């Protein structure tokens, strides 16, 4: 199915959880802030929320160093 990730069209398996989708990108979900359809998700929601056709994801990923 088609979803939109940071403004770009992407494909994702239907019903995949946010955590699983983020992991397919090679990111540790704990290092990513997720906005799904305009709403910032709490960390506990990553494993619960599933992506639907046309879902709009904004991912803000952090790398270490400070």
């Amino acid at each position, binding site marked *: 199915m088609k979803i939109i990730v940071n403004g770009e069209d992407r494909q994702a398996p239907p019903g995949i959880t946010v955590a699983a989708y983020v992991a397919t990108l090679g990111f*540790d979900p704990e290092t990513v*802030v997720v906005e799904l359809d305009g709403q*910032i998700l709490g*960390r506990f929601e990553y494993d619960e929320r599933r992506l639907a056709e046309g879902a709009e994801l904004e991912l*803000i*990923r952090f790398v*270490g160093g*400070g």
Partner: protein
Amino acid sequence: MLKVNERPYEFTPGLRLAELARRLKPDADVFIVNGFPVPPATELQDHDHCWLIRRGEKMGLEEMERLLYARHTPGVQARIKDSRVGIMGLGGLGSVVAVALARIGVGGLLLADYDLVEPSNLNRQQFFVDQVGMKKTEALRQNLARINPYLRVETFDQELTEENIPLVFAGVKVLVECFDGPRMKALALRTALTRMPEAGYVGASGLAGYGENDLIRTRRLRPHVYIVGDGEAEARPGQGLMAPRVGIAAHHQANQVLRLLLGLD
């Protein structure tokens, strides 16, 4: 009307600093007008703020405070002196942000870190060899007091969590995320976006190594929320954290904090 060492003095056209000094402070050898050092022959304009200083003289606290503020761009310091900024993490980013904000005269800093100063910190962080083993919060408090004794410093030396960040930093104008670990960086932003919608926020990601200067950018995520860095360069073996590039990012953060405090962004 002039202001001379912060006291009113009648302006007369054609008056030069040297003459003013002769009347008020003959031993002065440093002359500052509107925040900038100038030669004694400088002709004064009405409403100038003048400082006559004798090099090395011991000053009272009050006069010192006025002098520190005289060096700040007029108008700016008055608008930031009552501001309180929270800094999460006192490493290569946080300690540098704190020093920059102390130097421009931000009124209050809330410094949070549970770590101790270690020798490996000294390649980029604003601590000294004789502070190894001290709590970072305490060491930085000491160092900031030597820069600006009028800064109000509060410290928090326990671990920050999603639960306590909104409580610890309640009421800060801007929250600066200077953590090292990416999980804490994400946790902090998530917490700020969901539970501290009023606060300005300046985070950082991607500043390790010695990649190109200009890849470090300040990106606006949404109103009053910014992330500094190149987004890619993570700290790892072979790509360490070093004073120059971490410092570039830290000063991006500090300048963004200033812009938020001034209401420009």
